Every structure is written in structure tokens, then in C-alpha cells.
């Protein structure tokens, strides 16, 4: 806390006499306040110890860990497929992206390629949850800057997306969808049409949010030029995703290192220029439209075929085989009890999640459980830069800054 002038607690700051009597500054003292850990604007449970000089933030020190669940330790003690429920709870607004990102890394470590239809399903699921994540983020920005209507529109659209995700995965929030080798369930009948209708409605509602906020004077005044970070700092801190692109850096894992079928789909990566809250907000509004494009293309192109590998060493056999044949029951037993035998080795692999590069560093020792399961949550480095973004700025800027970086306690605090 201590770069600033040391002022003994309880003493008034010594302020030099002003030139003009009418310019006399209010005698003040520095104040430390706690934001959080239980505060509606502190997404999740971050405690921010802020030192204020009047309304100006002198230092800010984020204290995290209130939502720490021992993600890595838990993962090291369960089989590879059992890790999935833990990944749901990283970024709980876009669980599918965490599920698929993890599975993608495991499959890369094993050196298997999943069927094409499964790749399309993963793209559709990921983009649905990207929409879901961005809608929530934009809605929350609106709410916390005083615009309840934008929040309600955002959430209405979000609920529609959630319903589609529920139909696909069976769970509203914690999807645990996908398995090593593909996805565990095919698209439900009639789902594609429903999704297309949903996208129409989401587009309409997102348009409403856009219209309510983007040119709203009150909104832009609080967003433009606040929470700025320079491009150098952003790179240095490890910004990725919309927050980095708001600085004008063109880095999107989907384009830089295309995985699944992203290279066969036509979409743009929006790029900002200022690196402030407003640009970060705009990136999300724009990505909503791009995700919409991706899903429509993917649903049009999705081929027929299996959704999961047909290899009983990796994937559970069909249930009739399990109940009826010894081959099936052995495979089922071994896969459930010992886990998928991922060969010994290590891999770092990443996908583009809603907030940026979701990286996985996995180490296998050849047994059915991860030896090490490092997750590079995109929110972690971004949160570490919050002091840099708000020190010297007004306290009121903290709220939009915290909103636009879209800090998710679940992924930051593991």
C-alpha cells in the first residue's frame, strides 16, 4: 500500500496553503475502504482494499481466494472425464467452453481427433455460451451503471440461450457436456430450428440493449476514457480476448490457431482502439453478432455422422453392449474405475473462451487421472491488472472497470 505519502492514521493531511482563499481545498484524510468480498458490484467474491484520497483511488489491492475450491487438487484425484464437472464451475457463465476447452487439450495430449459432427456441436455450444456470457456481462454493466432496463433485456435473451443449452445438455448452468473423444449426446430433434428462432430473438434483444446503451450519454460518459490500459501493459499483464482486442491487438485463438472447424467458418474479429471500458463493452456487443453468424453457418453446415469416437479404450460402449456382453462390461468397468488411459506426457493447449485465452497445461503419468491440471483462466491476469487500471482514477470508475473486464470469481479463484 505504500508508495504514497505515509500519513499517520487519524492525522489530517498537511496540505500547503492555497494561493487564493476561495480555492481552499477541503481538509481531508486518506481513507481505506473495503469493497467486497460481499458486494453486489464485486462479481463473485473479490475483496478490494482501496485507499482513497477524497474520491481518487490512491492504491487498490485485490484480495482473492474467497471462492477457491481447490480445483487443481480435486482434478488430480479424479479420472479425466470426472474433471468435467469441476470445469463447469470455472467460468460458470460459459461452462460449455470450459468443458470443450479441457477436452480439447486432453484429446490433443492423446493425439486423437474427434468426429466432425462433434466438432460442429462443440463450435455451436461454445458460441451459444459466448453469447450467453457477453449478454450477462453487458447486462451487468448496464445494471451497475444504473440502467435496469438493459439488464432485463440482456437477461431475457440470456434465458432463451440457456433454454437451448438446457435442451442440449440437460443442465442449465453446470453442463458437464462432452466427453473425451467427442460429445456424449447428439443434438435433440428439432433443436436446430429452435436455435435459429432463438438467435433471431436474441439479436432483437441485443439490439435493444445496444440501442439503450451505446449512444446513451450517461452511459458513455462513465465508460469512455475510464479504466484505460496501454497496449504494452495489456500484453505484459497477459490480457487476452475482448479486453486485449479493445486495445487494437488482433489476437483471437480461433483465428490465430484454428481448432475444431473454426477455419471453415466465416467470421470477423472485432478490434477496438482505445483500451478503455467503452471499447471493451463494444467488443462484446460486436462479438454477439459474430457468434450469431458462426452459429448460423455451423448449423447450416453440420454434417451427419457419429458424435463420439468409436473406440472402447476411450469412450464408454453403448449400454446394450455393457449389459449384454463381457467386452462391453469390461470396457465400461475399466473406463469408469480407472479412467481414460491418457498416455504419459504433457501438453499446453488453449481455446478462445468468452474472456480470452483459456489455456490448459496437462500432465499425465499414464494412469487414468491427471497428474497436473493447470488452468490458465483468462480472468486471472486481467484481474491482476485492475490496480494499474484504476489507481489515480475516481472511485466511480472502478465499477465499470470491474464490469467490463468481466471478472468471474469461479475461474480466477479456481
Amino acid at each position, binding site marked *: 500500500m505504500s508508495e504514497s505519502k505515509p500519513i499517520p492514521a487519524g492525522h489530517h493531511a498537511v496540505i500547503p496553503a492555497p494561493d487564493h482563499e476561495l480555492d481552499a481545498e477541503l481538509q481531508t484524510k486518506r481513507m481505506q475502504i473495503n469493497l467486497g468480498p460481499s458486494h453486489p458490484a464485486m462479481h463473485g467474491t473479490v475483496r478490494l482494499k482501496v485507499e482513497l484520497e477524497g474520491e481518487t483511488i490512491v492504491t487498490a489491492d485485490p484480495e482473492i481466494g474467497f471462492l477457491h475450491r481447490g480445483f487443481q487438487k480435486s482434478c488430480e484425484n479424479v479420472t479425466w472425464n470426472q474433471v468435467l464437472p469441476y470445469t463447469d464451475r470455472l467460468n460458470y457463465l460459459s461452462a460449455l467452453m470450459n468443458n470443450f476447452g479441457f477436452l480439447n487439450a486432453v484429446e490433443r495430449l492423446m493425439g486423437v481427433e474427434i468426429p466432425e459432427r462433434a466438432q460442429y456441436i462443440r463450435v455451436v455450444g461454445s458460441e451459444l455460451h459466448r453469447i450467453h456470457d457477453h449478454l450477462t456481462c453487458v447486462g451487468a454493466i448496464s445494471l451497475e451503471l444504473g440502467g435496469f432496463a438493459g439488464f432485463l433485456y440482456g437477461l431475457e435473451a440470456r434465458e432463451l440461450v440457456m433454454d437451448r443449452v438446457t435442451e442440449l445438455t440437460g443442465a442449465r448452468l453446470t453442463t458437464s457436456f462432452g466427453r473425451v473423444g467427442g460429445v456424449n449426446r447428439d443434438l435433440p430433434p428439432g433443436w436446430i430450428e429452435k436455435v435459429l428462432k432463438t438467435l433471431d430473438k436474441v439479436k432483437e434483444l441485443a439490439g435493444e440493449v445496444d440501442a439503450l446503451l451505446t449512444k446513451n450519454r450517461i452511459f458513455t460518459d462513465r465508460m469512455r476514457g475510464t479504466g484505460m490500459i496501454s497496449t504494452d501493459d495489456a500484453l505484459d499483464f497477459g490480457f487476452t480476448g475482448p479486453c486485449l482486442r479493445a486495445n487494437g491487438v488482433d489476437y483471437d485463438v480461433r483465428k490465430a490457431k484454428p481448432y475444431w472447424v473454426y477455419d471453415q467458418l466465416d467470421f470477423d474479429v472485432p478490434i477496438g482502439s482505445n483500451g478503455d471500458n467503452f471499447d471493451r463493452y463494444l467488443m462484446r456487443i460486436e462479438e454477439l453478432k459474430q457468434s450469431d453468424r458462426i452459429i448460423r453457418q455451423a448449423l447450416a453446415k453440420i454434417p451427419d455422422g457419429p458424435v463420439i469416437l468409436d*473406440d472402447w479404450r476411450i469412450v464408454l460402449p453403448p449400454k446394450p453392449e455393457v449389459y*449384454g456382453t463381457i467386452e462391453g462390461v469390461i470396457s465400461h468397468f475399466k473406463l469408469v474405475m480407472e479412467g481414460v488411459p491418457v498416455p504419459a506426457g504433457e501438453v499446453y493447449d488453449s481455446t478462445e473462451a468468452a474472456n480470452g485465452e483459456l489455456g490448459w497445461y496437462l500432465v499425465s503419468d499414464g494412469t487414468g487421472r491427471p497428474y497436473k491440471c493447470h488452468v490458465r483462466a483468462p480472468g486471472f491476469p486481467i484481474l491482476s491488472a485492475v490496480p494499474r487500471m484504476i489507481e489515480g482514477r475516481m472511485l466511480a470508475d472502478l465499477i465499470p472497470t470491474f464490469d467490463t473486464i468481466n471478472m468471474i470469481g469461479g475461474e480466477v479463484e479456481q
Partner: protein
Amino acid sequence: MSDKDKPVGSGGSRPAEGAPTTSPAAKVGSEPSNPPAPPTATGERAGHEAQPASKPPAPPAGGPPPKPAPKNPGMVTFTVNGLEVVVKPGTNMIEAAKQVGVEIPYYCYHPRLSIAANCRMCLVEASNAPKLVPACQTPCAEGVAVKTDTFKVQDQERATMEFYLLNHPVDCAICDQAGECKLQDYYMRYDAKPSRLEGQKVLKNKRKVLGPLVVLDQERCILCTRCVRFMAEIPQEPQLGVFGRGSHEVIDVFPGAELNSNYAGNTVDICPVGALLNRDFRFKARAWFLSAAPSVCTGCSRGCSTYVDFFEQDTYRYRPRENEAINKSWMCDQGRVSYKYLSQGRVKLAYIGRGADVREATRAEALKELAGKLAPLKGKVSVLASPLSSNEDLLASLAFAQEVLGAKEVFVGGRPSGAADHLLMTADKNPNRKGLEWVAAGLGLALRPFEELSKGIEGGKIKALYAIGAEVPVDAGKFAQSLQKLELLVVQAINENAITAQAHYLLPATPHTEDEGTFSNLDGITQRFRKAYPGQGESQPHWKWASELMNELGLTTRYNSAREVFRALSARVPELKSFEWDKNAPPARERGGVRPLPTGADGRPMGRREFGEPRVRGI
């Protein structure tokens, strides 16, 4: 990790020199439906074998080419998957391949049994044979290139597995072997294909009781005949045989006979599948819930090395642990079922008083009161020691008896003697009689037979008795009656019996599974055993009771572990002085700090209850 990622001479990536003799004749009929040539006794003959088949029509003059000179004199040098192996002549390929980390699968092979080569799982490609050869039966020959990862071999393994599973019942869910079953392991490793069976499986007897300890599920049996060979060769009691033909072949006992050998339990251990099951253990626990601690059997003075398979604070079974010097890979059935005293009828609390006045006490309470009683009786207390206690227990307790109680002699208790047999079981049913003799001699205490104690009590000469262990070689009930005369009877006991009922002070002691320590068997071999779980109830080891009593009586010596006891006192015992307590420790039971969790989620791979690889060859 990185060290694994590197291509450390990965097998098969580079072709071995002098790879298979691929003459057309060798290629035709590669299907190894017929077994290859009869077993060859020496490397020399194996080298000759390939000659007639692959000989080209225009041989160079002078008969077969000379045998290649051995690369390493006196040894055989050849390659497995391109890795060079040097072994003694006559070593079979399975053992040789193990040296370079290449695993050849097998069911029927067992390093301590004769070779049957009937499971066909270990067939590998050798450069000096036109067909696949069984690795268990084929001795290594100079310069041969053996390959275990070619398509031909893999195809054979897959086909073999498919045939094994053809008639195998869908039993994993109810099978005791699940989780430690070779069929499961090899299916995942070498087959992993769906069933192609059309129609019914062959039905056989699902629960044929073979004897008092063993039950057979003939449907699960793969006819590897390990059990038949074991019974014929190791205990030399050929009670099992193969009956019938073709698909209806079964393992069985001879009509009217039963599998009642004292070594029948070993057939369960060596059965690679869930066919032979232990009636004592069956349906008691799932294999993946059990942890294993390296231990020693306490059934007799042989001291067979064992694994104690336990869950939480209960032992579920003993399994033999390999020990070349004592029990090889085997143990007897009486020892196998002798684990029951570890959990049944235990003294779990300290008790003060006898008869109607008996009351429960905490350890501290009991110690305090007992110390007060013992202090004035110095030199008047007789000591009874049980050879069921470990060396550490005896060292500390006898040192206490000598220094604090002023004892000059020790009466020997212990279980009564029983029958011995021709292989492992001895007549003395106490695991540590040798240790007791050594320790007493080392400390300068005279050992007195139990009869003298009985006479002394009957005659009223002995008024106070301190018993380390409540086992006596005579009828406990009768002996207990004479104990009523005693003014003070202190008993440290594992199990309740008639003697503990007479104790003025009954202190709960632990058996060997609940603490570390050593036993010395009848041949004078000292073995370490590991702690499996903490003491049940309030019980604690004899050495700890001794140490705490010493402190209570004003001595400052304090022992915090069995290791400390051994370090401090073994110097006085010449036979134990040279035993390196730390070095001779078998690996600890499991990875640190991990307790068994449901769904096998405790971090150990299934079927590997032991730390690392199981240390029994051939399972």
C-alpha cells in the same frame, strides 16, 4: 513428463538387425493355430530350429552355418523390439523382456511353475522362427531379434482375447476379481473390440465348491491350468485336474475328493481371472477399496511375508508377498485365515478391577493407578511375555520389567503348539519365539517355561504377575482359575479371553497391523512389517505401554516410536544389532496422506493396492 516424452529408445521405432527370416515359406500360414515346435531346452537347439524351414535351395557348402559366437561369453545376447538384452542361457523371453521394460502378456505362465504354454497370449515374433513362438517357453538364443509390437503379434493377441471372452460370463459387476483381473487388463490393452458372438455362451457350473476355502466358477475359467500345476508341483498334492474336452473342458477335483490341501488358497492368488475364489473373502470387499500394507503372517513361526489388505481399520485378507528366503510366493491356508483375531474380540479400552468391580478407564487413569500399585512391588512381580509380540514390544517391555519391576526371569507364554506340514507351516504357532529368546538373552533375563509359572501360582509363590500378551500355551480357562489367587494381575492384551477377565488392570494392546516393527522367524530371519492402520479403540503397542509406565514411575526414558525403541535397545541384543531397521523396510503402503475414497478416487491406479508395482512375480 518430459523425461517420458523423449524418445528413449522407444521399442520398435527402428527395425532390429537381422529381422525375421522372411522366406516365402515362412510367410505362408502365419496363423499360429498350431503350436510351434516342441520346447527347446537350450539356446543352441533354438538356433538350429529355423534352419530346415527357411533354408534356400542352394546352400553354401558345409551344412548349416556355424553358430554365431556369443557376444558376451557365457551369456546370451539378443534384442527385444530393438533393445539389446543380455541374459543367462536358458532364460525365457518373458523374463528377458522384463529386463528392458517390455511387457509380454501372459496368463498361464508363472515363474515358479512349470511351463504349459497353453494360453497363447505371449506369442511373439522371433527372427529365427517362421511362426510366432510362445515367449514363456522359448529360451533366448544368441542374436535373435524378438518383436512384440508387430501387426502379426497384435493380431494374435486380439484374436486370443476374443476367444477368451467368447464364453466368459458377463460377471464383472458381481465378480470378486474385478479390478485386479487380467482379462480386464488385457482386454483394454490388446483387444478393445465389441463382441462378435452370435448365440449362447457355454454354460457350466457357476459355484462348484472345491474345498473348505476355495470355490470355483467354471464359466469364468480360462483353463490356464496354473492351479492344477500349482497343486501338483508346489505342495505336491495333485488334487485338481482338467476334465472334459473342447468347450466343455473344466477344472475340477477328482470325484469324491475335495481341495483340502493347506495350500489351496494359493490357487486363488494365482488364478488370473475370477474363477477360483476364496470362500473366506468372497463378497466381503471390492478390491479397489482395499489398501495393502506389507506385513508378516503371525500364524506360525515361519513368518511368511504377506500383504495385509485393509479398509479403514479392518483387515480383510492376507495375501502372500514374495520373499525368496522364506515363502517364495506362497502361504498356507491356516495362515491366510489367521487375520481374524485382528478385529474380532479385541480389547479396545483399558479396564480397572476384576469381576463385579470392573470399570472402564482412560489410558492416563489406568497408568497412574497401575504405577501406584507397581511401585512398592519392585522385585516381587513375575513377568509373562508372549512370543506373539514384536521385537520392539519385547525390547521395551522386558527392559521395563528388568529395570523398573526388577525382574530376573521371564515366563514364556504364547499360543499352544499345533501341527506342522511339509512345506511352510511349523508346529510353533508364535511368530516371534526366536525374537523373545534373543531379546531375553541380550538383556540378561532368564527364560522360564510356562509350567513353572503355573506351579508358582498354584503354590502361592507368585503373588503378582505382569503379562505382556494374554496368550498361554495351556487351556486359558483352567489357567485363569488359578489366577484368581493373585494379588495383582496386569494384562496387556490384544484379544479378550478368560485371562483378561481376571486382570486387575487390563490394558489394550495392538497386533502387528497397527504398528511398525519386526519379527524374527524360526530360522533367525528378521523381517520388518509396516503399519496398516492406527490402533483400534484405545489400544496401543506394548512398547508404548512400557514406555509410559516407565515415565509414570519416574524414569525419563521415553520412546515415541517403534523405531526409537529398536535404535535404543537393539544394541544390547547381538542378533538384532546388525539388523538395519530402516534399510530393510518394505515400501510404505500407499502414497502419503491419501485415504481410501469411494469410487476408487484415492489416486492409486486400480489393482495396484501396493505402493508401486505389486511385488509378487507372476500375478
